[in-house]
């Protein structure tokens, strides 16, 4: 019984060590994040559920900011120079349906860039808490 607990402790300790490197490093840094963001933008530009929402957006600026933000939240040390999520999405009236569509587009983009599912999930987990500030604004 005690051996069992020690093995469990070791497994937890080892997996904790494996996570000491930032998600930013494990995913491949700015080049890979940039590729993900470019695939993401290409996808939602073609996605009729969300494309109209971005009709008036400055896409190059959006691209720069979202790369900064992904770098920032994954521990890459970048400074995010954009406005907070609540202000950014003010007046867009994004629905749950549109939010979920964006998540799917991001998942597809990460799959296209051959990001391992575990790292995809970690990035989704870091973005998920922003939902409350993104929808219904």
């Amino acid at each position, binding site marked *: 019984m005690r051996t069992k607990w020690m093995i469990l402790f070791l497994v937890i300790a080892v997996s904790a060590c494996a996570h000491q490197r930032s998600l930013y490093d494990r995913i491949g840094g700015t080049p890979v994040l940039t590729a993900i963001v470019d695939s993401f933008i290409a996808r939602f530009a073609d996605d009729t559920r969300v494309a109209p929402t971005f009709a008036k957006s400055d896409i190059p600026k959006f691209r720069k900011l979202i790369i900064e933000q992904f770098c920032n939240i994954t521990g890459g040390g970048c400074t995010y120079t954009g406005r907070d999520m609540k202000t950014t999405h003010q007046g867009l009236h994004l*629905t749950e349906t549109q939010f979920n569509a964006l998540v799917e587009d991001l998942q597809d983009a990460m799959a296209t860039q051959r990001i391992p599912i575990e790292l995809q999930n970690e990035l989704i987990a870091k973005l998920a808490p922003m939902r*409350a500030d993104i929808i219904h604004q």
Partner: protein
Amino acid sequence: MKRASGFVLLLAFAVTANLFGADSRLLATGGLTQVEGTAGGGIVPWAVLSGYATEDQVGGTGFLTYVNTGDYSLWAAGGTFTLHNRVEFSAAEQRLHLGTLAEALKLPGAELRQQVFGVKFRILGDAVYTREPQIAVGLQYKRNLDFAIPKLVGAKDKDGVDVYVAATKVFLAAAGGHHVLLNGTLRATKANQMGLLGFGTANDSGYKLVPEASAAILLNNSVAMGGEYRVKPDRLAFSREDNWSDFFIAYFPNKNVGFVMAVAQLGTIATLPHQSGLFLSFQGSF
């Protein structure tokens, strides 16, 4: 007959799927369809509502489930309708084929049939995105269609209502980068063997509170595996009734279909011990 009507139902859902096109919740967040017809695991109702509809959509599912323990086989089929990810209506029919037992005891009939009509309200939360778990309350009105046998073995009523509250939470990237789903359900019930053996007994017809739980890990965006446990009342004197458990693997190739393969351990059912076997389920969502 049951098989035929189940397939017709699924066909109808497959057709309507394209009409409604409510496909906006994330893959697998509609859960499976548990054996009483509501969104859940194989045997436990979850707080999630069936289908993939969001707050501004309607959706639903059709399902067909087959369980075979050697001595018994069970078919269950039904459908759900979910409005705006707020309320889910469900209807299902179960047919338990009594094979071995019917022959041994020369029972009046070889089948026990039951209909289940359910409604489930999402009270608060979103299983994936909010801090708090998604919480729902539900009712299942059950009507036994072959009450002669349940009456013979001591059941009091041929129908009854189960009431339950369920909490479901998806922990994103929680286990080595994989999403983990945990669910806890508390049910108040009078049912014997889910209602297939009627409700209550002559001297014990009050509600009993029974806990149920599920845990699952999403291996990728389309495959989940997990296990469930369902505590059951044990009231009929003629045979013990055991708690149920299952281990399942579910595959969602897309948002329109889901397949489940499970091993269910159902314990003693109507005097026959060690009932366990394969559990197969197909679900179509729209």
